[in-house]
């Protein structure tokens, strides 16, 4: 799951092809993903993992790294 999310973020959100991120890299605070972009990332997660994440749980803190996103997704995957 983490690999899938990481690959998607690298493909869709990183502008510089030389930049490398890991599952711990801050995504929101570093500016790779902003509060507006979080919506498309949320759509991706819900579609890919066939889940529904309540808006109250889709916070900047919960989206701040691939590890944190995976933790969040795991709570909703059956």
């Amino acid at each position, binding site marked *: 799951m983490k690999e899938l999310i990481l690959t998607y973020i690298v493909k*869709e959100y990183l*502008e*510089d*092809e*030389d*930049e490398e991120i890991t599952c711990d890299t*801050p995504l*929101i*605070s*570093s*500016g790779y*993903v*902003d*509060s*507006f*972009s979080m*919506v*498309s990332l949320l*759509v*991706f997660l819900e*579609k890919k993992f066939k889940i529904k994440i309540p808006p109250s749980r889709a*916070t*900047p*803190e919960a989206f*701040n790294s691939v590890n944190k996103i995976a933790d969040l997704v795991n709570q909703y995957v059956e």
Partner: protein
Amino acid sequence: MSNLGSYDNRLKNFDWSLGEKELDYKGGDVINIGWYCSDRICQKGSGEKIALYYENFGGKEKRFTFNEVRLASNTLGSFLNNLGLINEDRVCLFMDRIPELYFSFLGILKIGAIVQPLFSAFGDESLFVRLEDAQTRAIITQRKHLCKVRKIRDKLPNLEFIIIVDHVGAKELEEKEFSFNLKAIPAVEIMNIFPTKAESASVLHYTSGTTGQPKGVRHVHYSLISQYLTTKWVLDLQDSDIYWCTADPGWVTGTSYGIIGPWSLGISLCVLDSGFSPPTWYKFIEKYKISVWYTAPTAIRSLMKAGVRVVEGFDLTSLRYLASVGEPLNSEAVIWSQSVFGKTFHDTYWQTETGSIMIANFPEMKVKPGSMCKPFPGITGVVLDPITFEPINESGKIGLIAFKPDWPAMLRSYWNKDEKYHEKFVNGWFITGDKGRIDSDGYFWFIGRDDDIINTGGHLVSPFEVESALLEHPAVGESAVVAKPDEVSMEVVKAFITLKQGLTANSDLELEIMNFIRKKLSSIAMPQEVEFMDQLPKTRSGKIMRRLLHAKEWGEEIGDISTLEND
């Protein structure tokens, strides 16, 4: 006692020459914002005062004195001069909020060139149309944004210099690319600052147009007079204050009140180059003992959403004065800030075109939650009848918010768009494009836009620009873009789409379209929701009835539909 003192007394005795006197400026003199924000502060004996406290997302801190800002802006300005850049050239800033952005802003002004700040989250299409329109000669950027510039540079014959401030030696520079590493270049102690005059162009900010491409709003060095006085009286900045303006300098708040206003007053400025997160923001306030905080209603509502418990772990007693800008500040947010911070946010109203604050809740004046309060001294504000364009004298009646022209920071033109500029003035008034009302106490209340422009989190988005970009997606047949209500951002972008024949809607396509717009324009312009339709509502003449879709989203009456072609 606030800097303003009595609002009524200021009204009686006001003249913009007061600002000129405080800045030791006389009509016809040289006036250069770059010099005023650095050299002058040093000359007045505050060279060793901290001008900039900077922290990035990883917690890395830097601080710079006014003398260091002076030297860094001299060095950057001289570098630009040596490349052959001269006065009136447009030089774009396309960077995150790193110190080089602030030094470059002043350095560009010092050589008499025009600063064109652009939001670094813009996609390549948004960047291209703005650089092409301004015939920009140089762009200063970071490695991380270089790929967007490289993608469009061949279509921009006027773009001669691409300056990278964090170039790593091992990587090769391509044609037209130059490295500027502040640490590797000897600081320039003395430079010949270009003798700009009051009407010399200073900053070119781009703003969304209702029916066309973005418009370049041209400001001049004399705008300093308004920006200095409004910062002093509205934001009440005093010598010992530590000030945080959360706006990005890609937008006008980030330059007028994120650089020019505070630095012309010699105030210490804080910059947090990090994405939004409530604990991070509170920690930043606590750590730097921020006393004056200027932010946006969307951020305040996001903090409200995060809850009071997040605040409780931080000591925010340094906060002395709070203000907000960018969109209407709802009364709940004002009441919440009083209960949580013990201070109310003071709403301010102005636009890219006005260059400085026009209407504000002033210190020591009663705050009516939800109201913008009263015009700045020297500003004549009214609401106009939308038919006659005459001022409405009846309190509470809704009209167009307008101002008597000729305050120092008023725009001087739209770049290459004279006709659009002249359309802003009707019957001797500057028309803001916003609707409002004035109550019996003379307080202004914001009602909404008078056009289709979407205000999302304080950023204006043109439906036209998004619709045009959507049509470039291979699956999209037709598109209509409207504002959708949102609890935090007030409005967000929603797209209604019909697909080309033979294609069917699905969630993959929705995501693809969202990302397409995000990369092409910006995350702000990205539709937060895409609704696929079999057909869009149109008039009999074939024009898409955006009004109907807007009404549907807002649960409003749809009004007259006699011209509707399809049910």
